[in-house]
Every structure is written in structure tokens, then in C-alpha cells.
């Protein structure tokens, strides 16, 4: 087994036993990135020298007898997390050359845990997209089929883990941007309960929806990554005060008697038969493990797309108004203040970002605010109440993560609505702020399929337990994409 194939748990054990070192692990990651990332395009920045220095420090700390949850483990970060001293662009030209003067809370917690930061990964610009094709810098290719998308918006992080460039990574999920790329790239990805992980230093897209979360090749690794960064933060007043359970220490679970709901509406028309088959087979495995599987109706599911694509762009139009050329980032040539703003923003933002800012501004503008924005917020209440009702009778819900496997690059770029439909299965839990995970449950035509598990608020533990139980029986075995 190559070093880059080790899971985080395996790597920690190997270092503990003196069989390898962080320097060797980091070298293995960097070598693989050197050899193959030209084909994949997962990274915007590879922090080679800094990572090797951090690795040496980690090895030194370990020699001195120190322990830390991720000591010496190479981790990749979506380029949405502010990293002090390292360029952070959100894959936008408007932040080209921006070097944050501070670390996101997530980043400082990873550093405290001894992680080695391998680099910043590609994404859809300002997290707006489902394919990573909206990056202003480069395309990312799915390691399972280089002509296909990795999903988005955290496509670079998902691809990095799938390709064996890093054993773990972080992304963000607003409407599905961790879960959908995890499904398309055949890795585990999780969006925690809204408020579980601090958003301080995480560049904002839609503040009532954004959440950071981990990618890894096993559920246990994801659990470890999540518990390392989760928890209240005085710098994020939307972070929940609840203590963080030791998720990774409590993954054993007997599924007998577990009440699993399967929402009918998630298997709607437009779903590929191969995806449906793989997901239904996975649900059968849960049944064989003793879970009680029953269908459940979530009648407002079909309205989630419309509600989301009014709420998220509205919030984004407010959040992105800070990009004005005044204090940081791009400043276009200008003759007056109005031109400073309009030319900077006109030049600096890509097409999808402009589309969403316009949509959001329109929905919030006088005369339309009640008809669009407030209406969408009321529908959000209805969608959340579908989940509240479901969780009175069920412990978890399972569904597909994506209606299709990875689609070809360029296949949906001409039709914004077609691209938005990639998210139909992931949007409702986002609107409800609930924890949701995707893990691989098979292949369809050689491409990964994801099973989505949704839990009640702060139900990360049960979601991870069900995922771990399925993973043991499911046969995916943490594989790295067959990339050469």
C-alpha cells in the first residue's frame, strides 16, 4: 500500500508506531500532486515548502511525546477559508492576490490539532455552482473520468481526496456543495447542523445556509475531522453553544430497530436508473442490518429549489456587496466612486456570480421583496416542518445525494436551471439546517453514486453511526480513484 492510500486513522497509527512520519506522508502527497494534479486541477495553490516545514514540526512534536488529534496529517482546504499569509481567492478574480491577515477559526483549530496544510483547492467562484466550472482560474476534472465534472462547489477538495492527494479535506456546503461533489467523486462528505462549525474566516455566500464540513475516504476519518473543528466560537455568533461529542469514538451502532425513512419525493423523475438502483441496494443493506425501512412523504420537497434560489442569492447579494475595490482585492481603473464600484465588480465577478447577485437584488428590491424573498422564507418554514414531522417517526432519513452521476464538463454550462437541478436532493436539508452526509454506495457505468443520510438537528452522531454501519457492510472499502 502506498502512503497516499492510508486513511487518516491508518496514518495516525502508523506514525504512532514509528512506521512512517509526517515528513514521509507529506512527501507522498506532494509527489502524487506533482505527478497527477496537472490532469485533475484540484489545487489552486500547493503550499509545498510550508507543508514540509509543518510536517517536520509535527514529527518533532511527536518525538517530544506530544499528542494532537491530527498531528502530522496532510489536509487540503477549499480556497474559501482565510489562511493567514496564503492567498485566498474564492476562485474569483475579484480576490486575486488577496492574502488574508488572519486564519479562519477552522484553520486555527486544524493547526492546533497538528494538521499539515497541503494547499488550497479549486471551487466554483464564491461557492456558487455545482460543477466547479465557475472557477475563474481553472477547471477541475473528476479523478474517476477526467472528461467529467467533480461536482461543486467544493469540487477541488472532493477531487483531492478521491485522487489520493490528501487523506482529508474541508469544503463548504450551502445547498449541497460538500455532499454532491462527495457523491460524484466517490468519497465521504458531511455538512453538519447549521451552527455546528464556526464560519469565522470562511468567506460568506449565504449566511443562513453556509456550513463548513469534512471530506475523507472513510466515515471514521470524517468524524475525526468534524470533531476537531466543531464547537462554539466567540467570533461567530451563529455558532451553537452545545458541546461537541467525541463522534469518532462512538461509531459502533446496532441498527436493529433503527427507524429509517425514505422520502418518496427524492426519487423523482430525472433520476438516472443506475443511481436509483445503487441507492435502493444500499437501503436494502440497511434493512439487512436490522433497520426498519419505511417510506415517508415530504410534500414540500419540490419547492426547495425555488425557495433556495431566492434565499441564497438574496443573502449573497448582501454578502458580496463588500467587494467594492476599496480595501482589498481588485480595483478597476475609474474616474469616480460609481465607476470604482461598477467597473471593479463588473470586471471582477464571473457570469454565475453576477447572475445570482442580480437575482438576489431583484428579489429584495422594493415591490418584489414580499412576493419573492418573504414568500421563499415562508416556504422554508414549510420545508423545515416536513423534516420536523418526519423526525417524530424516524431516526434518520436516507435518499440519493445526486439524481445523476458526474456529468461531462460543459454539459450544463449553457442552462443555469439545468445546473441548479443537480442540487434537488441536497437543498431541503440545507434549508432546514440539518446534518447530512454522503458516502459512496456503488458505481453506475463506472462512476460513483452517493447515498445521503440526513439526521435531526445536532444528530451528527446518529448520522455517522448509520453511515459507519453501512460502510462496513457496503463493500466500497475506501478506494482511491483509479487515476494514472
Amino acid at each position, binding site marked *: 500500500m502506498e502512503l497516499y492510500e492510508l486513511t487518516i486513522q491508518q496514518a495516525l497509527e502508523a506514525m504512532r508506531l514509528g512506521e512512517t512520519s509526517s515528513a514521509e506522508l507529506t512527501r507522498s502527497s506532494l509527489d502524487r500532486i506533482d505527478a497527477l494534479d496537472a490532469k485533475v486541477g484540484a489545487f489552486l495553490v500547493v503550499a509545498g515548502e510550508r507543508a514540509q516545514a509543518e510536517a517536520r514540526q509535527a514529527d518533532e512534536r511527536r518525538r517530544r511525546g506530544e499528542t494532537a488529534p491530527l498531528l502530522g496529517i496532510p489536509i487540503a482546504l477549499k480556497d474559501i477559508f482565510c489562511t493567514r499569509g496564503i492567498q485566498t481567492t474564492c476562485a474569483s478574480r475579484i480576490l486575486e492576490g488577496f492574502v488574508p491577515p488572519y486564519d479562519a477559526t477552522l484553520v486555527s483549530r486544524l493547526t492546533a490539532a497538528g494538521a499539515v496544510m497541503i494547499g488550497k483547492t479549486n471551487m466554483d467562484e464564491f461557492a456558487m455552482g455545482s460543477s466547479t466550472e465557475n472557477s475563474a482560474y481553472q477547471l477541475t476534472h473528476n479523478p474517476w473520468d477526467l472528461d467529467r465534472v467533480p461536482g461543486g462547489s467544493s469540487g477541488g477538495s472532493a477531487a483531492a481526496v478521491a485522487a489520493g492527494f490528501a487523506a482529508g479535506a474541508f469544503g463548504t456546503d450551502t445547498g449541497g456543495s460538500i455532499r454532491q461533489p462527495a457523491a460524484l467523486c466517490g468519497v465521504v462528505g458531511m455538512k453538519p447542523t447549521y451552527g455546528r462549525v464556526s464560519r469565522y474566516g470562511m468567506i460568506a455566500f449565504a449566511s443562513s445556509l453556509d456550513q463548513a464540513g469534512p471530506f475523507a475516504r472513510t466515515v471514521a476519518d470524517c468524524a475525526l475531522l468534524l470533531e476537531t473543528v466543531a464547537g462554539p466560537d466567540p467570533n461567530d455568533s451563529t455558532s451553537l453553544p452545545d458541546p461537541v461529542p467525541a463522534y469518532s469514538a462512538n461509531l459502533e451502532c446496532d441498527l436493529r430497530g433503527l427507524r429509517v425513512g425514505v422520502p418518496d419525493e427524492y426519487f423523482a423523475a430525472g433520476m438516472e436508473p443506475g443511481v436509483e438502483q445503487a441507492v435502493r441496494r444500499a437501503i436494502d443493506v440497511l434493512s439487512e442490518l436490522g433497520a426498519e425501512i419505511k417510506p415517508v412523504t415530504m410534500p414540500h420537497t419540490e419547492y426547495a429549489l425555488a425557495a433556495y434560489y431566492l434565499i441564497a442569492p438574496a443573502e449573497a447579494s448582501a454578502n458580496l456587496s463588500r467587494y467594492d475595490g476599496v480595501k482589498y482585492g481588485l480595483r478597476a481603473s475609474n474616474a*469616480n466612486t460609481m465607476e*470604482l464600484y461598477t467597473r471593479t465588480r463588473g470586471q471582477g465577478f464571473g457570469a454565475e456570480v453576477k*447572475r445570482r447577485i442580480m437575482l438576489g437584488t431583484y428579489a429584495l428590491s422594493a415591490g418584489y421583496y414580499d412576493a419573492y424573498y418573504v414568500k421563499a422564507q415562508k416556504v422554508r418554514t414549510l420545508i423545515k416542518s416536513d423534516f420536523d414531522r418526519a423526525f417524530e417517526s424516524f431516526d434518520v432519513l436516507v435518499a440519493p445525494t445526486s439524481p445523476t452521476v458526474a456529468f461531462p464538463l460543459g454539459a450544463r454550462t449553457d442552462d*443555469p436551471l439545468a445546473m441548479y437541478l443537480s442540487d434537488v436532493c441536497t437543498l431541503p436539508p440545507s434549508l432546514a439546517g440539518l446534518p447530512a452526509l454522503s458516502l459512496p454506495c456503488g458505481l453506475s457505468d463506472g462512476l460513483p453514486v452517493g447515498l445521503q443520510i440526513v439526521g435531526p438537528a445536532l444528530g451528527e452522531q446518529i448520522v455517522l453511526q448509520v453511515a459507519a454501519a453501512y460502510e462496513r457492510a457496503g463493500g466500497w472499502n475506501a478506494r482511491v480513484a483509479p487515476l494514472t
Partner: protein
Amino acid sequence: MAVAISHDEIEHVALLARLGLSDDELEKLANELSAILDHMRALNQLDTSAIPPTAQVIPLRNVMRPDAPRPSLPVEEVLANAPDHDASYFRVPPVLD
């Protein structure tokens, strides 16, 4: 009947958003937004007259800290990414004539 956003409306929205857009971009956006908003009209099928809006899914309200000063970023770090600055100021075009 489809939602049709007029050229004047789209120009107004672009101004509100301080986005400098070419005529081609404006036209394309008018069409795209019309199509997207048309899809949104499905929300009108739902009777939400008695439903409160959800702005935030968590129960936290007014999370405060004591009004005690803490160190903040040094001025040099704040200005390090500035497109144009002068000593401890960001330099911008004149706002008033």
C-alpha cells in the same frame, strides 16, 4: 404568462447592485432571470398566509459579549491588501465634488 423583465428593470437592478454590465450582458441576464423567476412562480401554489417566514434556523438571538476592548489588527496588516493607500488611510476617488 412568463415573467418578463424589462430592459429598464434590469438596468435598475444592475445599478442597485453596482454591477457594470455590457448591453449584451444586460440582455442575457434579463432573459435568464425571466426564465429562473418563471420557475419560482411555483411557490405561489402554496398557501403561506398563516406561515411565518424563517430567516434563521437556529434559536440563538442577540449573542453578546461584554463591551471590553480587545486588540485588533495592526494598521499595516489592514492596509497590506489595499489597492491604494496613504499612510494609515485607504485612498479612494473623491465622493463629494
